[in-house]
């Protein structure tokens, strides 16, 4: 293959942040193309700064490059200035590792983390000179795949993706490599042949091998067109994270990216059962990494990368049973010889224990601490099963301000099922109380409430709920804003309800949305996650042009036995479990965390013959949040004293 570098290089003198396109990261592989090896281009359909830190992509990149029969490179969506330069001279999309043309790879696999990147996938394919629609590709074109959380309802992208990997990708990419290698070796020019073989891989869904039938507006069936293609595709789950200590060589970019630090995944899955949270539902069961392995990954990672910050990632890191030991040993580890290493926990639980950990971690400047109560009243939090008591929240906030933090940020959603104006205004009330607590310790204490419109997601108990309209979300946001304005020291930020609408429409949409996504892309609608490029009119116009009803796709409450566009896919959770949880939710009945209470058979463990891998049989200290524990409300916050004076090195 020929590198495009010499053609690309002159363009880079004229674009913003050209370092995004050069590769050269520490940890990047040196690809060796051997006969018969399957070449993968792993693509993140957003900018390099957002895509590079993605751990999923990095894990698969390493796993593939370790195989003798596979090679993997990476690509990211070029920003609009470079895209214009590329189109002007017909320069195709390239890999950043060795600047190969994207179309020269056997497989291009996209990471789909959210619905708003869909149009960028089409743009990347078009820039790669690959037909955007599956039906227009032949054996000379790469096989276009995708994985990531958004692919649990891949139907809106069914026209464009040849195959989709559901669930954990570690094993899927190996199996797909085997299938593609055999197909290449056979010399076959029949694309359907390789697609049928891919459909045999556990966790792989090939949309073109299924026929979706609609009557009136309604989906009535979605069935395989060949007898050997499974009628239900099960997600893939790795049983034990200890077998997958990746990434071993995390990529260290030469230029600034969103999460510029070492990341170590401490567990996958979550059983807290927050009903709005798709990530928690589709990644079950809980699989913890052994604490020793976490320590080794931190030590080796810090030594190899030179980073001075490590993030311990998961959906709720304070729940990791080895958390205290791991943090202690990391902060006290002199053996790395790399100086002080700070630890960050991106997903904080709201309780005293968490504030204690945060105090231990943030020995230096204490500027801001973030909590996510998600809803403004206890009633509302019971509905969404985020069981944080007000006492817990205020104790956490008190803990934060009393230990020197000056700003607290609180995340909330609006547009939740059964939400009343009282619930919405409860956010202001809660914020007000937090400001009062803060002012006891610091005159300049400030609290920010950040509010996002709720998007019902597939494979959650809320998948039946009709999303709030743009108008309704705006009404609630302005209602709340007017209240917040009256409270000195309280600030408010919010997410654009128009973007929430597009997310919601695609999130539970079916394959008829393919034409809409294509129209939006053809009209120039790329980078829809970026407010400066997002334009809701492109979406509503495309819906109208294709005779599709926004109300029906987005705002309609679903019926109990309605066939969902994702019903032929299985994330492990039984549909009747989700329905019961939805009914419980409407009755304001909470559900405890099954790590420490008896199994209520959601299906995630039993269906795959695997279990939660948790090192400790007792819930972590502190916190009433769904642990079944009731540690006495309103107790003193345990204050961890600083081991070293602030600012000392």
């Amino acid at each position, binding site marked *: 293959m020929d590198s495009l*570098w*010499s053609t690309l*290089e*002159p363009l*880079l*003198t004229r674009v913003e*942040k*050209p*370092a995004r*396109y*050069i*590769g*050269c990261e*520490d940890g990047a592989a040196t690809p060796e193309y051997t006969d018969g090896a399957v070449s993968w281009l792993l693509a993140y359909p957003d900018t390099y700064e957002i895509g590079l830190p993605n751990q999923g992509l990095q894990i698969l990149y390493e796993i593939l490059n370790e195989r003798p029969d596979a090679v993997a490179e990476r690509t990211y969506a070029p920003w609009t200035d470079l895209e214009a330069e590329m189109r002007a001279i017909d320069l195709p999309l390239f890999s950043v590792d060795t600047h190969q043309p994207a179309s020269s790879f056997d497989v291009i696999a996209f990471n789909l983390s959210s619905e708003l990147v869909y149009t960028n996938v089409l743009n990347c394919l078009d820039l790669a000179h690959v037909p955007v629609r599956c039906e227009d590709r032949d054996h000379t074109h790469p096989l276009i795949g995708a994985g990531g959380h958004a692919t649990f309802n891949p139907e809106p992208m069914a026209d464009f993706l040849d195959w989709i990997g559901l669930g954990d990708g570690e094993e899927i990419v190996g199996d797909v490599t085997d299938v593609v290698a055999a197909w290449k070796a056979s010399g076959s020019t029949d694309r359907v042949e390789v697609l049928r073989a891919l459909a045999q891989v556990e966790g792989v869904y090939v949309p073109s091998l299924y026929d979706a039938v609609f009557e009136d507006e309604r989906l009535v069936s979605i069935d395989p067109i060949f007898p050997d293609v499974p009628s239900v595709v099960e997600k893939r789950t790795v049983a034990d994270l200890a077998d997958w200590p990746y990434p071993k060589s995390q990529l*260290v970019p*030469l*230029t*600034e990216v969103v999460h*510029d630090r070492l990341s170590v995944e401490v567990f996958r899955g979550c059983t807290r059962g927050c009903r709005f949270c798709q990530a928690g539902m589709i990644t079950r069961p809980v699989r913890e990494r052994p604490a020793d392995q976490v320590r080794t990954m931190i030590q080796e990672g810090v*030594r*190899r*990368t*030179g*980073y*001075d910050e490590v993030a311990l990632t998961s959906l709720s890191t304070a729940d990791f049973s080895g958390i205290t030991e791991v943090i202690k040993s990391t902060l006290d580890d002199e053996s790395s*010889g*790399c*100086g002080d290493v700070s630890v960050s926990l991106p997903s904080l639980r709201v309780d005293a224990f968490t504030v204690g950990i945060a105090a231990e971690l943030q020995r*230096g*400047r204490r500027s801001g601490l973030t909590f996510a109560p998600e809803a403004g009243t206890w009633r509302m939090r019971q509905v969404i099963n985020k069981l944080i008591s007000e006492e817990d929240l205020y104790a956490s906030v008190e803990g934060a301000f009393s230990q020197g933090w000056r700003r607290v940020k609180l995340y909330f959603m609006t547009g939740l099922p059964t939400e009343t104006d009282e619930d919405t205004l409860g956010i202001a009330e809660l914020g007000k109380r937090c400001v009062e607590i803060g002012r006891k310790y610091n005159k300049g204490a400030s609290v920010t409430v950040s509010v996002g419109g709720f998007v019902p997601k597939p494979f959650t108990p809320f998948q039946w709920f009709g999303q709030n309209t743009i108008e309704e979300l705006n009404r609630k946001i302005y209602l709340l804003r007017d209240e917040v304005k009256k409270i000195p020291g309280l600030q408010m930020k919010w997410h654009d309800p128009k973007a929430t609408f597009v997310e919601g429409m695609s999130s539970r949409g079916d394959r008829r949305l393919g034409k809409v996504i294509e129209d939006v892309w053809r009209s120039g609608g790329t980078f829809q996650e970026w407010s400066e490029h997002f334009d809701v009119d492109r979406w509503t116009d495309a819906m109208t042009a294709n005779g599709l009803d926004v109300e029906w796709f987005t705002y309609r409450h679903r019926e109990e036995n309605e066939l969902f566009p994702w019903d032929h896919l299985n994330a492990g959770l039984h549909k009747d479990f989700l329905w019961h949880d939805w009914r419980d939710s409407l009755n304001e009945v909470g559900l405890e965390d099954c790590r420490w209470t008896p199994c209520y058979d959601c299906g995630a463990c039993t269906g795959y013959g695997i279990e939660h891998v948790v090192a400790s049989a007792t819930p972590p200290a502190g916190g009433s949040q769904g642990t079944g524990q009731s540690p006495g409300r309103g107790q003193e916050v345990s204050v961890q004293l600083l081991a070293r004076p*602030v*600012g000392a*090195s």
Partner: protein
Amino acid sequence: MTLPRKPQVRLQYSKLGKVRFTSHRDMARIWERSVRRAKLPIAYSEGFSPRAKLSFGLALPTVFESVAEYADLTFDEPVPAEGLPELLTPLLPVGVDVVAATELEGKVESLQECVMATEWSLFVDGDLAEVGAWARDLLAADSLEITRERKGKTRVDDVREALLDARVQPIATDAPVIGASTEIVVNLATKPRALRPLEFLGINAPPHTFVLGRRLHQFISPVGARRDPLDVGAAQATHDLSRAS
């Protein structure tokens, strides 16, 4: 109270090839990580967010190459300059090679303070004779006015004093630059305000377009002495420079 001066080492390094597209800020972060990986006893600043004590001279514009970048490293304990190039180069990106190091003795002016002029090789697409005439006109002029923007305000500056020397020549046949036909070697003053190479190239309706630039030297005082910043102690040039990647 005066604290004893902490030991310092001055390094010279290159920035060649793909890495030229990183910014000055990117390079500072790359250096911080590399110094930590080398387990050098780098000193940290005081305060809430301690930073490694690394200081660089005049920022090299993004997309420019260089064979004459410098960094001052401050340590908590003495570190011999010898061996630092071999230690650090493998920990830095391809194209960034540490070529020389010297320990700084006593009070030494910072790179920001001491660098008076910089010399550049600018590769352009333009006719040799026309570019030569353009450069001669610039050198013959009494004043050269350019319009600059700073903090939202535009002002006209006379930059003639900052243009110390310029010569125009064909590009060496053994080191071609794709898309370029002519090389301008120019010496630009940095005080009181630096004339940037792209500002220089844009003066008076230039008959050329910019392709590639490379910083060749940074000179310390006195002006015209062609002393480089390592010429403050016993510098040890240990590596040859060659264009990477």
